[in-house]
């Protein structure tokens, strides 16, 4: 839409939702993938195409230290992955087994689990958090003899905090409980080493920190035999069999792959590997700390996460609705953030009474100048935050 007033240049700080811009190599890979015929063994066009599925699988396995690469499964999103894993892990749990999750989690975890609880298939406990994290002691105290599974986010999309996966995983495995970790907010932002993480499955999405595009995601599963497939169909392998193959990744991958999406994912993972996740994390930490430091100087601003591990800043301006702050940031300053509950209603209920917040989230492409402009804009808004009810 064409506004009458001059709009300032776009500053995109909604990268926890979807990263933008994408690296040039990602755009080139998508174009190339559409320009070439689909690769596949047994297809007559195979010799002219690129095997983007294998490229992406190896790139993701390398970035997340997931071994073997065949245990990396591609889906359409992190939400899709979580549904497959939750349903698959709990396939034999008709007697009402016990599952743990946390208040920090996204609706992509909370809704599948609450639906199963409503159906009477599981008993669900939602664990509280403190200082942005759920304590391993809290996890241990919630375990009962029938606890079978815990599902939780590695990083909070509201607070940018990171869970103590190693300690929580050890507690769970000591009790023979499976552990699914949602890495949607951490993959590509901070080092994720699945060789060292005591998890049974880890979920990723393509379009956030991995610089892919929407419509791609996946998961790594350590022991595929622990999960029942919940989708069935053509795999291009063992086609005389009328049952789903047990081999990986065909056990969980049916139907035609998203070739342009996986080409983008491979290129995104390659781009990150070229920079180094540690370097990305260091820059993000410095820029995030700068914005938070600036906002803390403003008495009218409440920051909910003073020392996040991920490039996320959640705040409110006293006397203003978060939606209004977001509207002004976008319209008057060209700053795109995200307002509301961020699909994490329980986290917001805990930190702001369910009112929601303004969230700014950075990426490798965020510049220091953009951080300065954003902090200055928020401080300006906050300094005028005394809405007068009356005649304009």
């Amino acid at each position, binding site marked *: *839409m*064409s*506004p*009458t*007033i001059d709009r300032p240049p776009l500053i995109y700080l909604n990268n926890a939702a979807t990263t933008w811009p994408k690296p040039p190599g990602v755009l080139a890979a998508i174009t190339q993938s559409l320009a070439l015929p689909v690769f596949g063994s047994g297809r007559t066009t195979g010799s002219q195409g690129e095997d983007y599925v294998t490229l992406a699988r190896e790139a993701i396995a390398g970035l997340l230290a997931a071994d073997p690469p065949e245990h990396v499964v591609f889906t359409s999103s992190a939400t899709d992955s979580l549904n497959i894993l939750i349903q698959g892990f709990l396939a034999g749990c008709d007697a009402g087994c016990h599952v743990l999750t946390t208040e920090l989690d996204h609706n992509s975890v909370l809704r599948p689990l609450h639906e199963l609880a409503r159906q009477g298939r599981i008993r669900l406990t939602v664990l509280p958090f403190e200082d942005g994290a759920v304590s391993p002691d809290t996890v241990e105290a919630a375990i009962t003899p029938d606890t079978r599974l815990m599902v939780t986010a590695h990083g909070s999309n509201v607070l940018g905090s990171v869970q103590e996966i190693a300690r929580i995983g050890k507690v769970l495995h000591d009790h023979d409980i499976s552990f699914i970790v949602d890495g949607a907010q951490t993959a590509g932002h901070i080092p994720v080493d699945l060789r060292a993480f005591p998890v049974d499955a880890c979920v990723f999405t393509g379009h956030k920190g991995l610089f892919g595009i929407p419509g791609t995601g996946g998961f790594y599963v350590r022991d595929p035999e622990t999960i029942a497939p919940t989708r069935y169909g053509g795999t291009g392998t063992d086609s005389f069999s009328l049952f789903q193959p047990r081999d990986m990744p065909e056990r969980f991958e049916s139907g035609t792959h998203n070739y342009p999406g996986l080409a983008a994912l491979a290129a995104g993972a390659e781009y990150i590997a070229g920079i180094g996740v540690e370097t990305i994390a260091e820059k993000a930490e410095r820029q995030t700390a700068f914005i938070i430091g600036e906002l803390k100087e403003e008495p009218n601003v409440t920051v909910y996460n003073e020392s996040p591990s991920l490039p996320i800043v959640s705040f409110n301006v006293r006397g203003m609705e978060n*939606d*209004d702050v977001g*509207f*002004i940031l976008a*319209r*008057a*300053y060209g700053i795109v953030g995200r*307002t*509301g*509950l*961020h*699909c994490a209603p329980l986290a917001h209920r805990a930190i702001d009474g369910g009112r*929601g917040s303004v969230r700014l989230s950075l990426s490798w492409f965020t510049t220091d100048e953009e951080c300065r402009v954003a902090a200055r804009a928020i401080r*300006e*808004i906050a300094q*005028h*935050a005394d*809405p*007068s*009810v*009356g*005649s*304009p």
Partner: protein
Amino acid sequence: MRILRSVRHKSCADGSFMKEFLLDAPVTAGFFAYLENFGEVEALRNVGEGFYKFEKTDWFSIKGMNGDTTVEVRFKKEAMDLTADFVYLLFSSYREGAADLSLLKQREQAIEKRVKERLYGP
């Protein structure tokens, strides 16, 4: 003032139904002064070109920046089927300067009765 285009957006916080309207003329302080005949207006005049927000409790809200040709309208879902037409009427009836609001007020009162019955009972 005419609505040239209406685009629906998602609102995750309260499930309200949100639309962005592209208008044939920029909204002004005068437009929000006109809206104040039908609800409450909050203003942050020193932010950017000036931020304005009109709220008609249980009906809808309208947000805009002074001089902008786009505004954001959020309908309360529970009564949206009763109130949506009135939003269009508010925009199309606006003229700069003094205006006769009697017909609009009559319409508002008729809808208000139905909205109250819907939300709070007869």
